[in-house]
Every structure is written in C-alpha cells, then in structure tokens.
C-alpha cells in the first residue's frame, strides 16, 4: 500500500489509472488508490503555505505551539504541510472554533472578517476535496470471539439451552464503546476453563433432556434426531445426529475431516464402555470448545499478488448479519439462504433483514447495541445516594432499564423513524416508573404503552435510565450529560481535558450557588471555555431532570435554569426545545447512530476511509423516511460489511 501511494501521488496519473481499471471492469480500483491520509492535494499545499500558515502564525501559534499546547493543541510543529493537511479531525475543530468565534480569544488580536472568510473557505474546500479523494476499504476486522451475550444466545438457539452459562464468564472488555470488537475480546486461561465447564454442563443438559424417560418426541429435539438401532448402525446414526448440529454450530457446512474428528468421540465412548448417547454428549462438548465455534472465523484468502480484498462468503455474511441483529447464530432459514447464494440478491437480503427484525430475537439490538450505545447497561452499577433518592430501589432500577429496552424495541419491530429516538409522543411505563415520573393512570407492574407530553417526556433523552447513568450519585451533572449527547447523539465527542486541568477556583464561586453558576466559572477560563461552551449548554437543557430522572423545577432552593446557547448561537429553553434543536440537524444524529451501529456490527473502530460509507448510509436513510430497517439494510449492504480485507503474509 505504502508503495502504491508514492507512485500514485500524482493526481492526473491516478485518475488515468482509475479510468483504465474501470474500463477493465476490475474491482481493484478502490484498493489501488490507498487512503487519502497523507496524500495531500497540491493545490491545498500551496494554499496552506500562502494562506493558512501566515494566518495561524499571526493568530494561533502564540498559544498553540509545541511548548504551550494550550488546550492540548499544537498547530505549529508539523513536519510538512502534507502531514498537517492530513489531520482532518484537527481542521474540523479549527474550523468550528474560528467559525463560532471561540478562537482567537477575545483579548487577543482578531482577524478581519475578510481574512476569516478566506481561511474558512479554504478549510471547507480542503475538507471537501479530501473527502472526495477518500475511497472506502473493508478495514481490518480481527476474528471475533463470541462475547457473553452472544454465547448465551447461541447455545440457546443451537441446543435449546434454557440457562445462561456465560453469566459466569468474566466480563468482556470493550473498545470503541462496544464489546463486539475482535481485537479487544481476549481469551484467558480462566475463560477457557469456563468454556470447558460450560460445554460439559450444556452437553449433559441436552443428553438428559433428550434421552431421559420424559424426553420430547424425536421431531422436537435439537440433537438426538434419530434413534440408533443397535451397534451396526451406530456410525451412520452418529453422522445423522451430529452433522446438522455441527453445521449450525460452525455456521457453515463442516468438512468431512471435521466430522470424522468429532465422530471419533462416539467411538471413544464405546471403547470406554459408555453408551452411544454418551458418546454424542462428549462430541458435543468438543464441538462447543472448538475455536470454530467460539470464534467467528473468516478465512484469509491465500495471496500471491494483486488485490487481497474479497467479498465475504455467503456463510460468513449470514453470521455477520445474525450476530449484528440477534447477537446469535444464523437460524435455518438464513443458513439455507446463504447456502443457496440468495444473500447476494438485494431483494432476498432485504426480506431476510425484515424478517429478522420482526423476530423477537431482535431484542438483542435493544439490549446489547442500545445498552452500550446509550450506555444504559451501566444501570447495573448506577449507585444513586439512597439518602437523597430513597425511592430508587431494585424494581425501579429495572423498570428504568426496561422502559428504554421496550422503547427501542418498538422502533425496531414497528420499523419506525430513527428520529423517534430523539423525540416521540409515547413511552413504556409500569406503575412504579409512572409514579416516579409523576404520570397518572398507570397501574400494576406490567408495562404499557403510554402517550406522554413531549414537553417533559418522550425520546431517550427524557428516560430515567439515561438520566441516571449520566449523573453523579448525589447530583446531576450537566457536563456528563452534555458529553453524553456529544458522544452518543451528535458523534462530536469533545477532546479529552488537557493533562493539567487548571482547578476551578472554588474561592471565586460560592459552593452553595447553583451548579449552573459554578459551571459558568468554566467558561470564564479560556482553556476550559472552548470545550465547555459546547458541552454545558446541552446539559443545562436537561436540568429539569434530577439525578434519577424525576422531573423537578427547583434544585434545592434554586429555581432550575434550563436554558442553553450553543457556540453557533442557537439557543433553547428546556428539554422540548433541546429536542427540536437537535432535530434541526437530522443528519448529524443519523450519522452518529450509523457510526455506532457500524462499529457494533463490524467489530472494529471506524477509519477515515469509512467516511464515504457513512455519507451514503445517511443519504439513503434520509431517502427512506429514516426507517430503522433502512439503516440496518444500508449497513449490511455497505462495503465494509460485505467485504473482508485480505492480509498479506509478510506484514
């Protein structure tokens, strides 16, 4: 790749080559170009030298140099203009700071309107040009171990296991906010011991269930689908019993060699004077600890030369889809479609996805995708102060979580607009949660769909689960909530606080003053202001919700001030206006959701070369009335989901 980049740096040549390859109908176009990262466009370099650098020299470098690094930003010490221009995230931030007038600080020399306009225009055109030059790539997806949820769901669907063995497994580490990241999911000796024990338990459970005196009829069994008729038929019966299970467990047709290795256990059991059924039990154990079961294996094409990327095969695609939508293995219908090559057909693919989203197993998206996207999984460890919030007990905690799960599920199952996540006129409540919200007319502990006043409730921002996990044990935090919105709704996370955060001078602010007044101090401090001007106002909009999501109009003795003004000048008062402000830029939210879902589904972090994929997904979702299924379909159809990067042997 590196080599290619050098050769192809000259733009006209690159275009030529592209055209040539297109004519040849060759799919290698995307790879021949390489990522645009360090591949700066000559016009940009000139403009950087003649326009941007002199501008920054005059207005920026005095603080943003390698020694001072105000706000953790150094704009000066790039080795070459190409490297500088390649840092797109940086220019995005610079652009915002300049455009919204947050930089340069007021007490510093200010650029003229004309200067500013020129620089902003250049940054915008550079961004545009860079985006256009980017070509999508599949990216590196590391082989994924089943995480705890996937393991539980898979053994449930594979063998009808009614218990959840993975609850005893150690927690899975997460990266990019999700526990589906192949490179982060490790396997320790301790976990392997647990896999062995779980396999024994599961296989024995199947054995007891299906061979006991009260066992189900043959047609309703998962494994023992043929009665063996004496020793003569044992080998063929074992094959008949095991082959379908192994196919589902490995999520592809097993090879003859693989089958023989497993069938060997049946013979081994007989040699040890155990029964045929016990032999099957041991074979199941072996299957359940095989790497073919525990990992989602995708083969690496054998490379000699040329383009190493390939379309994932039909079985691999089926697994990608089913673990994305169900956190579980493909079912028979999906495996069959894969086997018959039907998933290549857009219509079949769309129908399969629609079918899978309607299936109750799609609750996995609410529990595992949304649980991590919206962070309400942290409800399990949320710890509000019992003295301040005495009504927060286990049933209420569980009800809060359930509200968000049911709400998410309604959007999936009814194929609603994803914009409903931000604002909707309904939610799901039981008596205790309704009581917590101050909503009348809901009785009993069962959940029901309730129409709500959008000025107070409706949409995830108003749900107690989210409001609780973004609070401290004793109080709300507009900062945590603002950061949460930037991360999870707008995909514009603030940069981390610089290493040496200057302390808020507490002497200046009366500690009994409202939180808001204390936070104002942030913004009188220059190095805090640039980020907190974006963070805090969003959190202020949610100040009517206390640290466990109940509605309030005062905080202690202070009336709530729920107004906020964003750096770009848009202002709002209260949660209803906050919601409509967020919905003014629908695509920002849809893009954020698409990013999160893509990370979750692919099992890797996103790279600059994924930008065009996201652009396309957002455009298509908008064209399809923001339907949930459209988002899912576009992700499944996207290049990184359909393709796999080949890895050369010498890397």
């Amino acid at each position, binding site marked *: 790749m590196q080599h290619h980049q050098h050769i192809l740096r000259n733009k006209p040549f690159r275009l030529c080559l592209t055209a040539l390859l297109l004519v040849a109908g060759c799919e290698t176009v995307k790879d021949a170009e390489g990522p645009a990262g360090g591949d700066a466009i000559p016009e940009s370099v000139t403009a950087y030298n003649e326009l941007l650098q002199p501008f920054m020299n005059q207005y920026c470098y005095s603080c943003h140099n390698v020694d001072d690094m105000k706000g953790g930003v150094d704009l000066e010490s790039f080795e070459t203009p190409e490297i500088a221009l390649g840092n797109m995230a940086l220019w995005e931030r610079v652009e915002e700071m300049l455009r919204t007038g947050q930089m340069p600080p007021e007490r510093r020399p200010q650029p003229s309107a004309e200067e500013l306009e020129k620089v902003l225009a250049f940054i915008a055109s550079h961004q545009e040009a860079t985006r256009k030059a980017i070509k999508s790539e599949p990216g590196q997806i590391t*082989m994924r171990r089943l995480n705890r949820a996937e393991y539980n769901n898979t053994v449930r669907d594979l063998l009808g296991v009614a218990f959840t063995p993975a609850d005893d497994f*150690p*927690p899975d580490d997460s990266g990019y906010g999700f526990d589906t990241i192949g490179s982060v999911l490790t396997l320790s000796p301790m976990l392997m011991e647990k896999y*062995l024990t779980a396999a024994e338990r599961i296989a024995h459970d199947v054995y007891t269930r299906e061979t006991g005196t009260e066992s189900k009829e043959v047609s309703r069994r998962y494994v023992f689908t043929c009665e063996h008729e004496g020793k003569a038929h044992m080998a063929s019966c074992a094959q008949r019993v095991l082959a379908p299970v192994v196919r589902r467990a490995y999520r592809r047709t097993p090879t003859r060699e693989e089958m023989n290795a497993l069938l060997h256990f049946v013979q*081994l059991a007989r040699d040890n004077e155990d029964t045929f059924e016990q032999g099957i039990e041991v074979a199941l154990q072996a299957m359940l600890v095989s790497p073919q079961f525990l990992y989602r294996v995708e083969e690496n094409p054998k490379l000699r030369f040329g383009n190493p990327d390939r379309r994932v095969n039909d079985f691999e695609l089926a697994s990608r889809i089913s673990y994305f939508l169900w956190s579980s293995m493909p079912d028979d219908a999906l495996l069959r479609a894969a086997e018959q090559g039907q998933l290549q057909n857009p219509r079949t693919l769309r129908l399969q996805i629609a079918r899978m989203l309607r299936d109750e197993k799609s609750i996995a998206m609410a529990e595992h995708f949304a649980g991590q996207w919206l962070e309400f999984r942290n409800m399990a460890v949320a710890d509000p*102060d019992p003295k301040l919030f005495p009504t927060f007990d286990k049933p209420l905690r569980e009800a809060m979580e359930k509200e968000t799960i049911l709400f998410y599920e309604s959007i999936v199952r009814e194929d609603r607009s994803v914009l409903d996540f931000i604002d909707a006129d309904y939610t799901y409540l039981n008596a205790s949660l309704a009581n917590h919200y101050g909503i009348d007319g809901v009785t009993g502990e069962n959940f029901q769909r309730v129409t709500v006043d959008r000025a107070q409730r409706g949409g995830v921002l108003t749900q107690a689960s989210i409001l609780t996990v973004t609070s401290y044990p004793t109080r709300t935090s507009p900062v945590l909530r603002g950061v949460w919105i930037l991360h999870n709704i707008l995909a514009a996370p603030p940069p981390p606080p610089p290493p040496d955060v200057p302390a808020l001078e507490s002497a200046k602010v009366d500690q009994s003053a409202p939180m808001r007044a204390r936070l104002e101090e942030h913004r009188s401090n220059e190095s805090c202001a640039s980020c907190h001007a974006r963070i805090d106002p969003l959190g202020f909009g949610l100040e009517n919700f206390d640290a466990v999501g109940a509605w309030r109009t005062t905080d202690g003795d202070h009336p709530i001030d729920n107004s906020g003004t964003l750096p770009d000048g848009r202002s709002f008062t209260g949660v209803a206006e906050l919601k409509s402000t967020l919905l003014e830029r629908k695509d920002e939210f849809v893009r954020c959701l698409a990013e999160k879902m893509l990370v979750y589904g692919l099992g890797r972090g996103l790279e600059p070369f994924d930008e065009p994929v996201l652009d396309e997904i957002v455009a298509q979702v908008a064209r399809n009335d923001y339907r949930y299924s459209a988002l899912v379909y576009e992700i499944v159809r996207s290049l990184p989901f359909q393709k796999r990067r080949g890895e050369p042997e010498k890397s």
Partner: protein
Amino acid sequence: MISFTQKRTLDRRTFLRGVGAAVALPTLDAMASALPRPSASVSPVRMAFVYIPNGVIIEDWTPAADGTDFALPHILEPLGPSRDSINILTGLSHHNAQALGDGGGDHARASAVFLTGVHPVKTDGANIRAGISVDQIAAQHLGHHTRFASLELTCEPGKLAGNCDSGYSCAYSNSISWRSETTPNPPEGNPRAVFERLFGSASENLDPATRAKREKYRGSILDFVLEDTKKLQNTLGPTDRRKLDEYLYAVRMIERRIESNEKFAASEGVELEVPESAPKDYAEYARLMFDLQALAFQTDQTRIATFMMAMEGSNRAYREVGVDGGHHGISHHQGDEAKIADIRKINRYHMEQFAYFIERLKKTEDGDGSLLDHSLVVYGSGISDGNRHNHNNLPVILAGGACGNVKSGRHIKYEDETPMANLYLNMLEHAGVPTQALGDSTGKLNYLSAV
C-alpha cells in the same frame, strides 16, 4: 506437610464470614496438591501486587522522617501492628504513565503502566499494546511449580458501557496484569468463582472412576481442539493467527493443569463455606478476596497474585465509611477540604483491608517462618495525587521479607523520578527470576536488601 488439623482451622476461619449458601466439598484436588509442599527450608517466594485507583492524599501518606524512626501518617496507621514487616517507599515514579504527547487518559495509563513500566498505545481497541507485567514474567518462569501460574482478582468488574478513559480501551483500566504486550489478563471479581477454580466445586464431587473417565475425555477433547487449531491457523491471516495464539496458550495451560492434577493424590474430607456472590459490604468483599489469595499461597496453588481493589478511575461511592460521592469524582477535590477528607477516608479504608491481608499472611505458618516472611507484597497506585494526576512520587508499600532477603520496618526515600520498574527487578531477583530490564527500569533499587 500441613497437618490435617491445621488445614481445618485455617479453612473454616476463612469462609465462615461469608454469607449465603454453604456448600460442602468433601474432596478437593486442590488441597491435595498442596500437601506435597517443598520442604520447609526452601519455602518459595510468593508475590502479590495490590492496586488502588485514583491516587491518595499524599501528605497523609508520607511519613515525615525516613529510616526506621518514623511515625505512621493517618492513612498508614492501620499498618501499625505490621510496621516491622513493611517498607514505605517514596520517590518511585512511572514516567511512562505521563501523556508524552498523548493528551488525556492518565487513569488508563496509570493502571496499564503500573506493573509493566511501558507507555501504552493510545487506542480504543484497534492495537492494544502495553508491556508484559512483572507478575507475568514471574509466572512464566515459576508457573510450572503450581497448578495456577498466577491469580488475577478484582473487587470491581469493569465498566459495562461507554468509554473508560478518553480514547483508551477499557482493557487498560480494568487490568494491571499483562500476559504479553498485547494481551491483558482480565481479573475475576466473583469470589465464589475464584474459590471453585482454586479448590473445586460441589459438582466435582465424583467417584474416582467417573472422575478418571471425565479427565480422560477432557484430555481427548483438548487434543482435538489443538488439532483443530493447527488446521485453522493455516487458513488465517497474521492478525487472526495472533488472536488464536491466546486460545492455544489457554488450552496448553489447562493441559498442564490436568497433568499436575495427576501428580497429586486426592485428600479426604475438608468442609468449607463459600458465599454465593460478592458481599455487598466492601470490607467484607475485599477481605474475602485477600483470604483467597492467602489461601492460594498457603496451599501453593499459585505463588503470584494481582489484585485491583477497584478499577482505575473507579467512581465507587464508599458509603461504608460515610463517603457519598463517587471516588473518582471527589478525587478531583480542587482543594475542597470536605472532599479531601472523604478521599482520606477511602485511602484509609483501603489500607485497613490491606493491613488485614498482611496480618493474615503474618499469622500463617509456612515452613520455617510465616507466609509473610516468604512473600513480597506491593501495595500502591499508578497515580500519586488524584487531583493532579501526577505519576511521580507514587504511594508504594512493600511488605514481606522475601525469605530473609529484604530488610523491613523502614521508610526509604528514593530520589524523585526513580523508576518504579526498578523495584520489580529486585523482586524478580528475590523470586528467583533474575531479569535485566522491565519497562523503563534503569537497574535495581538500593537499600532494600537485608544482606
């Protein structure tokens, strides 16, 4: 050899505190393996590393005087009874926990560097990398002496969603033990699971014939998966092959354990009581985890343990000692006296639990002395002052005599910025694993040796 009565008393005392269901465990392989211990004169060195998050109120940690004649400051007071068995080491530092151009993320770096001395790669997951940790270097060399090469424990399972520390994968904050530079060893937080792993569970109460058969099947299954793995390797690219190495390593470790089980005969009737789940009360929970480590050392199940008293950046509220705010939140006290007082309470509370561990090791006979005489236990944090996030002059206690190799009862002041990793070179040497370098080490520490 441990006598039967000794064994009974120690075990019962340990687990009586536990709440919940009691399980009778008539036969224990694990106890059996403890029996043929090395002869008393050559007791092995045990190593434990105990981690506390978010730094400390360093003024209330550091004794005013150095040498042997010092008063224990407020936070260290609980160590009073064990004063002669500990050293307070000041000035040790982890340069590689600093930003070094990587911006925020001091918490993630603090835990990742603590036992590795290596500056971790800032990544949310694509290329996790720190360094092999001191406990794992020891485990690689000494692990074959015991059923378990090492034990990794925690009192706080990691965060369940969201980001742990700006731009760093949660793997960095949740583990201090690293088996290789790319593979953290996640700790176990469920005391029952730890217990069953070490000493077997009720379901393993099988007759010898059934047990033998099961072991045989297990052996065949492991052979099968190794064969399977070999074939699989041929079809994978380099990255996935490296991933599969984790699997291979895990399988080999289990094979070795089965072999070591075969070396020891089963012992008779020991009854233990095990709590069903982690105790709610923090002190009870932490002490149970310490008990498990002490017991694992005593019975020679392992000689190496790491223990995170909470994950780095932990925001636990220690209501047990009247602290309602989250630990991380209030550690940024910004000079607020009330918050400083709360942090001090937490620091001392953690120390009380550690003191319990040290006293327990001291009370446990081991060969020609106590278990503490034959141990080296580090207690500390990768952050010095939680408010400032600095990584120099870290709070560090070293307890235990390393079989007469370390002289205790002192406050040793090292020059500030002395690499913490230097301490690990001393420890590895005393454990019989002389090592030239670890992380940013520059050579062994002076003044520790008793000879």
